[in-house]
């Protein structure tokens, strides 16, 4: 039993390292992205082996489910605009636009040698540090277990995330909002120009999957209180539903109004800030919740944050602000030139 598990760990670690190496040295960028998707999958197995099911769930939903499509969608935009085929990255046909990202010098230059030597030194130093750390390391597990009863939830990770370390999560939700604002202010969402020839099978599959995804996303948010799950995992699963809608190119999507989206994006941070203010008023401390109401309040907070996180991640996938915003921008003339209509 023990030996089998050790063998599993060893194989997993070696495969992770091999995948990372392949991912970073393969000449084809598409191949690298596929390796990255597999890498995320194996990472979530590694989290399972570390007995961190919450992290594994987040990695499964975000790392594998969303980051891969995010890269795939960006790949087409980046490579296509460079006017060359994504399958022949290293070829570089000498065109001014074609070889922009080509490595200037494939031979080992002195600079490259220096960088390699330095990173090897860094690796050696870090590994040496790991080996000489005295074990077991002190942790906070006992403190968390001791005050779990005051948090209003049974899952220690959720308790740390939303109650004990509420600051971190508040800032994180703000970072997400900031990310969405940045993406929206950089560019508009590029919708594919042609009339979509979506396969009926895809439409049927999306119609079948959508309600199930929403159901299970909600279930994960609700379950976060006492088992594996929570706002981030549930939100990521919800965003998968929106991403499915986006990929299926339904015709009504580009014309969507942005006001409900904006409200949804800010709902989670708003509720969090209100809760923090409530903590100041009632308990005289920022983000401290009254013990008897902590459970329901946290559930409410998780639901709002889950919704906002789902919308934010879907906005990341869309890669810009909705098309209905175009006429509001001051420099719409410039934006129109490469608008979604002809791109």
């Amino acid at each position, binding site marked *: 039993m023990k030996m*089998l598990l050790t063998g599993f760990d060893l194989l997993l670690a070696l495969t992770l390292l091999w995948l990372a190496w392949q991912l970073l040295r393969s000449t084809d960028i598409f191949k690298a992205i596929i390796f990255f998707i597999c890498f995320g999958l194996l990472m979530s197995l590694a989290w*399972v082996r570390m007995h961190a099911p919450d992290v594994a769930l987040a990695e499964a939903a975000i790392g*594998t489910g969303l980051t891969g499509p995010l890269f795939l969608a960006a790949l087409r935009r980046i490579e296509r605009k460079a006017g060359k085929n994504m399958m022949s990255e290293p070829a570089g046909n000498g065109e001014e636009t074609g070889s922009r990202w080509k490595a200037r010098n494939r031979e080992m230059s002195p600079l490259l040698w220096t960088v390699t030597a330095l990173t090897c030194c860094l690796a050696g130093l870090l590994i040496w540090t790991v080996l000489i750390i005295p074990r077991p390391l002190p942790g906070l597990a006992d403190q968390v277990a001791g005050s779990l009863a005051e948090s209003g939830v049974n899952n220690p990770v959720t308790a740390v995330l939303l109650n004990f370390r509420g600051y971190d999560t508040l800032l994180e939700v703000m970072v997400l909002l900031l990310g969405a604002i940045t993406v929206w202010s950089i560019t508009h969402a590029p919708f594919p120009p042609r009339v979509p020839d979506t396969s009926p099978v895809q439409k049927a599959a999306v119609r079948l999957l959508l309600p199930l995804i929403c159901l299970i996303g909600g279930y994960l948010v609700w379950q976060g209180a006492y088992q*594996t799950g929570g706002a981030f995992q549930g939100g990521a699963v919800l965003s998968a539903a929106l991403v499915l809608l986006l990929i299926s190119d339904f015709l009504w999507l580009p014309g969507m109004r942005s006001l409900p989206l904006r409200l949804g994006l800010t709902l989670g941070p708003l509720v969090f800030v209100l809760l923090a203010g409530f903590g100041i008023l009632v308990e005289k401390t920022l983000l401290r919740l009254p013990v008897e109401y902590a459970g329901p309040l946290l559930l409410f907070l998780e639901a709002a944050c889950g919704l906002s996180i789902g919308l934010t991640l879907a906005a990341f996938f869309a890669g810009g602000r909705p098309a209905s915003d175009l006429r509001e921008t001051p420099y719409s003339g410039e934006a129109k030139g490469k608008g979604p209509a002809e791109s």
Partner: protein
Amino acid sequence: MIHVAVALFLLLTVVLGMIRIVYGPTVADRMMAAQLFGTSGLAILLVLAWGMDMPELIDIALTFSLLATLATMTFVRRVWYEEGKSDDS
């Protein structure tokens, strides 16, 4: 015991299948290999749920199965376009 052995074996088939990503002649081969690992990885999770006695892994497997189509659909709709009549001007 048996569950962990099955998990180890499935991980071995996943690692073997990665050869297809390295050598796959077309982009679709690589993408479908990744899809295969989704299925195998899900099976590993389910078996480990019994082998490590962690029933919460079933929820992770459920998430995997929900998101399995996402990457492939993105690939088909956004990456793998016709080369001849591509839509860039």
